[in-house]
């Protein structure tokens, strides 16, 4: 599929554009080598990490809004 060839060529560019996504690229390229059970386990682990990040960020934002004196913007 030509799309895959094109996107494969663009992936290094994506990683260079935003190093934050190097992990995602690595993950997706590793997927074909992982069985579905391993991928599901990885998804669950990632969701656990995301849960912590979301809660942490929510608390940080609420503290900031509180420091501002609250209010909607």
């Amino acid at each position: 599929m030509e799309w895959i060839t094109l996107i494969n060529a663009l992936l290094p560019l994506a990683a260079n554009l935003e190093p934050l996504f190097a992990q995602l690229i690595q993950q997706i390229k590793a997927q074909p080598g992982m069985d579905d059970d391993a991928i599901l386990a990885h998804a669950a682990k990632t969701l656990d990490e995301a849960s912590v990040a979301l809660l942490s960020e929510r608390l940080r934002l609420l503290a900031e809004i509180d420091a501002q004196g609250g209010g909607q913007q």
Partner: protein
Amino acid sequence: MKRQISIAIALTIILTFSACTKKAATPGAQADPFSPAVRAADDIALSIKLLTETERNLEMQKIITPQEGLRVIDGLSALHEADVKFVADITAARKAGDRTALAPSLAALRQAVVSLNSKGVLGIKSNDARLAFQTAMNSLDLAIAGIDAFTR
């Protein structure tokens, strides 16, 4: 600001790549019919994590307000909940061999993306930040739509 656009472009490329390369994990082995859903669940999980980081970066740079950031986090939290349910449903559906059982949780995922977009992203005042998130939302929706057909 160009960095936020680059984030959106990077995520679009990556999710498109993932959507185009759904295939069996073991070459030559019979493809697991649930593989596309499994991979999508993993991609969505990582996307949630990265979008949370993106929101944090934008807010700390004062490109978006904390109120705007909180609405995005609310939306991402709902999407997170939907993906947790999706992962659980995939596990059950694989055991039962029933792909159609995934339809409700897939619908919930799509609804969470729509809601994140309408209640979180569209309210962002910064054009570039809004564009960055909207592009990522479109890519997420694409990833979910790509597996929607296989539940029928």
